């Protein structure tokens, strides 16, 4: 059943309408009779819909799938105010003449709330003096000192003329409808009851609430009929008001929440709608889906970046529907025989599971017009996702490759967009069910179309970690192979290419294989040491990369050339405009890096960060220098002669200067370490930008430096001191978080403690940050989600309001640009 909704109108429910849309009137608070059948006239009446499979609706005759439910209604003995509208009711009472029932203004078009804030003392129509209206939360009104009950409110509202309502923009209906005389009772299937294992029935919260209302309402009516004392009637009346109010909203301020027998607050209608798990955000905007799978991910560099390895077990559960046509009927029959089909659908919509027993029968039966649900196979387009899905590249389309074992396999080069690693991360996979979805996915969401990030115009997909190290080591000068070795390596990497006709094949030759012939580049590599005088191509560190006609002439390829986020060559190839070519470049480079690294081997050990004795002495001296400088500051401070920095107390200036001195010391140490450390695989990793930095090396080899909490030296602990190891009032570097040793040498117990404190702060900061930025993302998305670029390049919202006259001011889409710019020199042939 499909229907097209073009617009939604909101309004207040007319009691007449309530009566018309209802099929029955509720007359009893009983739910079931002795036999367990719904009582006629009760709130579970079977004429209001079906909730049990096998039963039929007595209004429309439909079964559980066909019947959409029917309303009932309850006649209230006395009217009650609709709490959700209580503020409107209050304003209306204030704005209505207590004598003639006109709105207390002669001006045209004034907001109700605006008028309510400033009401005249006398009616402009009949000159009647207006008494003060008092609103007692949550739903009682007093007029002067007298109570102003719902009946009187209703009478008052009935007198308001229609033309006055237009003035205050009250267009949703008549105001007296805000005071309920008839209560619509929602269909049974909006509040299904659950049958417990014991056979007991557990009713929905709304049913409980309705039962309460019906019961109290009945006794109220009876009491009115027998002429019971007024206080009893008023008490019951208020009870009805309470129950009706909590039916609508059970989180009203000023009254206690209605509770279930277990003490759990009941869920009112508003509670059903609102919040994260409410109807709107939980069921309408987000849905649970079928045809999805989730498991742990692990790397496989032999896959292409836009492929995903799917375990056989997953592939045999996920299905894709396919129509049986004259063209494929024989193939389909074969598929059913070989067990590649899970279900077949007959033209009448009935679904049959394919089993060993019925396989042969189905082959005979199957005909054009049937639909088969076949298992996932190689080459199917699937969506691959890792949560949190922070940006659009958190869900991309991959091509399935069915594989043994139980994890999803992916190329490590696509880790950056998903922000995934393989320390136990799980990812989700969705099998697409319609041809339209599959086409859009492969044209728009394929990894190869999303290599350039719209965020900053650089590459998101690129070589990562060991792949970078591998290529870096391969392209260094002096790496040479015999043609046999080279061919062997290329074969193991699955690269099909022609080798240059040379006796000795260099690593640079191999790394040039995937680079397209059109590429001519010259740029500084990551290892560039920013020398004062750049010698260009002759750089002995190989810091200047030169590529001519796709041939790497000099320099090493590292993070700046091929890495994710930075890769300059990736961006350059992107300007050629062929996504397939770009994807192949990343694939082949990645495999080449891995293959070389496997051939060469990569190893790190403690001795990698050994420094000679004299260097260690220098380092010790530097640390001592920094500490003694710090000590001088302390003695200055103790003398009171420290120069206070502007806007700071003496203590604050001391702390600021201490941090600076110690950081300066560490910086000196770092310089010495970087200068003197012998080349090893660790250095190769930091140099190439694969992983780690000079600070990491320094901290391992020489000195960890100052640990900070909230940007300050460590101050907390005991009174006057941080730990019992120190004297009270000790201001020295060591007692406030300075770690003078490196990780290799080992930390002193208290130094270890400083390190842990810093680590804990990081954890706390992270958890707070994710929450804050998560909410910010929700708000940002909600603010901007309707903006789109129109054909005339204006940016407009859903209402047609123009936000920008020319998208991004120059119309350039960062995801199609070079780092957000038009590098036009790359595109010209003239000159």
């Amino acid at each position, binding site marked *: 059943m499909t229907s097209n909704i073009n617009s939604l109108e*909101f309004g207040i429910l007319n009691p007449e309408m309530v009566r018309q849309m209802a099929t029955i009137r509720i007359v009893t608070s009983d739910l079931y009779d002795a036999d367990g059948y719904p009582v006629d*006239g009760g709130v579970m009446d079977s004429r209001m819909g079906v909730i049990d499979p096998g039963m039929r609706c007595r209004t429309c005759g439909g079964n559980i799938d066909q019947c959409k439910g029917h309303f009932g209604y309850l006649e209230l003995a006395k009217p009650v105010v609709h709490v959700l*509208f209580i503020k409107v009711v209050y304003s209306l009472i204030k704005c209505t003449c207590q004598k003639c029932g006109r709105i207390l203004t002669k001006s045209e078009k004034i907001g109700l709330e605006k008028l309510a804030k400033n009401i005249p003392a006398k009616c402009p129509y009949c000159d009647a003096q207006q008494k003060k209206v008092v609103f007692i939360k949550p739903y009682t009104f007093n007029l002067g000192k007298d109570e102003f009950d719902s009946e009187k409110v209703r009478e008052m509202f009935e007198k308001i003329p229609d033309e006055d309502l237009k003035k205050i923009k009250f267009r949703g209906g008549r105001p007296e409808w805000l005071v309920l005389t008839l209560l619509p009772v929602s269909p049974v299937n909006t509040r299904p009851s659950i049958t417990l294992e014991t056979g007991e029935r557990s009713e929905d919260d709304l049913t409980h609430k309705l039962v309460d209302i019906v019961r109290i309402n009945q006794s109220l009516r009876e009491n009115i009929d027998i002429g019971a004392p007024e206080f*009893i009637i008023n008490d019951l009346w208020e009870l009805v008001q309470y129950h009706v109010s909590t039916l609508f909203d059970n989180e009203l301020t000023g009254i206690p929440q209605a509770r279930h027998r277990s003490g759990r607050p009941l869920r009112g209608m508003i509670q059903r709608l609102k919040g994260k798990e409410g109807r*709107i955000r939980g069921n309408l905007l987000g849905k649970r889906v079928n045809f999805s799978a989730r498991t742990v991910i692990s790397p496989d560099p032999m896959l292409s970046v836009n492929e995903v390895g799917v375990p056989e077990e997953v592939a045999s559960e996920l299905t894709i529907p396919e129509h049986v046509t004259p063209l494929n009927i024989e193939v389909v029959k074969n598929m059913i025989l070989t067990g590649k089909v899970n279900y077949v659908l007959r033209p009448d919509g009935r679904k049959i599971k394919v089993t060993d027993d019925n396989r042969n029968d189905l082959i005979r039966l199957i005909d054009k017009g049937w639909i088969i649900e076949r298992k996932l196979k190689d080459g199917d387009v699937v969506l691959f996702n890792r949560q949190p899905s922070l940006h659009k590249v958190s869900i991309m389309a991959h091509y399935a490759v069915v594989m043994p074992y139980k994890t999803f396999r992916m190329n490590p080069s696509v880790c950056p967009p998903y922000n995934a690693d393989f320390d136990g991360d799980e990812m989700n996979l969705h099998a697409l069910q319609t041809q339209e979805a599959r086409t859009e996915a492969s044209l728009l969401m394929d990894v190869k179309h999303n290599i350039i990030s719209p965020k900053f115009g650089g590459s998101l997909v690129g070589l990562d970690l060991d792949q970078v190290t591998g290529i870096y080591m391969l392209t260094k000068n002096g790496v040479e192979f015999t043609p046999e070795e080279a061919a062997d390596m290329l074969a193991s990497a699955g690269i099909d290419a022609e080798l240059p006709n040379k006796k000795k094949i260099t690593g640079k030759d191999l790394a040039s294989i995937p680079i397209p012939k059109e590429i001519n580049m010259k740029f500084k590599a990551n290892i560039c040491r920013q020398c004062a005088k750049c010698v260009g191509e002759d750089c002995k560190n190989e810091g200047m990369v030169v590529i001519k006609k796709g041939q790497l002439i000099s320099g090493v390829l590292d993070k700046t050339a091929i890495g994710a986020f930075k890769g300059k060559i990736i961006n350059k190839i992107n300007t050629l405009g062929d996504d397939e070519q770009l994807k192949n470049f990343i694939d082949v480079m990645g495999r080449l890096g891995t293959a070389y690294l496997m051939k060469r081997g990569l190893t790190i050990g403690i001795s990698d960060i050994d420094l000679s004795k004299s260097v260690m002495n220098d380092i010790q001296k530097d640390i001592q220098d920094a500490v003694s400088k710090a000590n001088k500051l302390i003695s200055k401070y103790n003398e009171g002669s420290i120069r206070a920095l502007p806007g700071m107390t003496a203590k604050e200036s001391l702390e600021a200067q201490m941090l600076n001195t110690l950081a300066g010391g560490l910086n000196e140490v770092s310089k010495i370490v970087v200068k003197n450390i012998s080349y090893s695989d660790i250095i190769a990793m930091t140099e190439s930008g694969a992983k780690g930095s000079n600070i990491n090396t320094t901290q391992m080899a020489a000195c960890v430096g100052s640990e900070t909490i909230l940007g300050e030296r460590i101050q907390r602990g005991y009174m006057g001191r941080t730990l019992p190891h120190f004297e009270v009032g000790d201001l020295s570097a060591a007692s406030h978080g300075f770690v003078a040793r490196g990780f290799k040498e080992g930390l002193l117990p208290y130094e270890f403690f400083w390190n842990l404190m810093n680590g804990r702060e990081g954890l706390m900061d992270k958890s707070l940050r994710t929450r804050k*930025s998560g909410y910010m993302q929700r708000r*940002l998305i909600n603010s901007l989600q309707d903006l789109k670029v129109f054909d005339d390049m204006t940016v407009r919202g859903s209402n047609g309001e123009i936000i920008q006259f020319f998208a991004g001011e120059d119309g350039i889409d960062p995801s199609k640009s070079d780092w957000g710019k038009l590098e036009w020199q790359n595109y010209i042939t003239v000159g």
Partner: protein
Amino acid sequence: MMKLPEKIEQQVEEFAKEKKMTPDKKKKLHEEVMTAYKMMLYSPEEAIGIIAAQSLSEPATQMTMRTYHFAGTAGIQVTLGLPRILEIFDAKKEPETPAMTIYIDKKHQTEPKVTHIAEMIKEVKLKDVVTTSIMDVINMVVKFRLNDEKIKRLEIDIKKVSSKIKIKNIEIGVQGKDLVVTSKKENINIHKLRYKILESHVSGIKNISQVIIQKDEFDEWVIHTLGSNLKKVCEIEGVDGTRTTTNNIFEIKEVFGIEAARNAIIKEAMHTIEEQGLGVDIRYVMLLADIMTFNEKIMGIGRYGIAGHKHSIIARASFEETKKHLIDAAVKGLKDDLSGSVENIIMNKVAPMGTGSFTLIGSLPKVPSEIKKEYEKIEKEMTKRREEVEAERLKVLEEQKQAEKVAEEPKAELLTEEPKTEKQKEEKAAKKTEKKAKVGEKTKKEPKTRIAKKKPATEKAKKSASSETKKKKK
């Protein structure tokens, strides 16, 4: 005809000049650059808003929560990182750490002159110029000795100082170099009074608590302040009002207008993001700044800003304050024309963006008659099945109606309600009033505790009654 962006146009012109190109060649160059530019343009219907929001918030997860120094070592501490980004996007009226960068015009570019301006700007309270103060508890008099030098440098005298103290119920006099304050009221805490007087504003600009003079990278004297008051600072002589800025966006809007505020938002947001070493394209920040200011006032991104002022009711209700928006729409009788993305998702339609805003026009290629027949056959089968289902439903309905007709009488009785004899009615009513009296008592306390508890008592009574009547009928 589309034009190249100005900057690129210029570059291309220069390039052509440099290479001494002939007009023909130049035209070709132009065309080539133009094609490259056209390839880079946004595709129509691109959901630029979502991409902007994601591009801005994804790096926010990597931001620190800390505050950092402003400029070098002796700088002013300014909020940065995630808190600052939130501040800007939320359009907070006042930043946590308001700060200004004051530029000085060419005439005043010497250290003493700049120092003088800085002193004029900095807020001076009485306590800053007082050397000693004496309290006479008996006569309720407080005497303040002022620092002459400091006062002179601020270009004020003792009389002016006395006129600046604005506290009720006191008398201020001048005795030589002393400021004498007498309380008009008796029984006043003189310590408190003294403290109050010391806190009163004497000179400078209010709220500017710190000033730091520095030379910037262009060897120019610049004053950094903590605290902000753009309007008053710009009025001071020697201040270059054309370049002086503040990080308080609302102040910029007040002084320079909404376009300046938009630029300030872009500048501040980009500064914060870049300071964290994160790269985000400036176009997204511009888009956000544009939507924040397009309504001629600065709107934040939250429920009191853009998200809460959307025209679609459903979009607003799905964000926050569901109840408020739905009720408001009902009273005003509003209509939602379902033009945005959320609305369409809720209605199970494709959002009108990207490929979702296009439909296929035209006819499919003709289907061979053979296949057409096949499909017709299938269609027939399907309709037959549908008809069967419908017929079954109607049949069941009819059967039920029949069954109900047979059992009409008891049902009618139920609906008309209270068909009981007068005796029964009286009895019941008597019982009820008894109970009601109890219930009435309970109701006053009851809602606070448990309402469900009451149920068994009344329900049981009724159940037994109704089941009795039913049995009779049977």
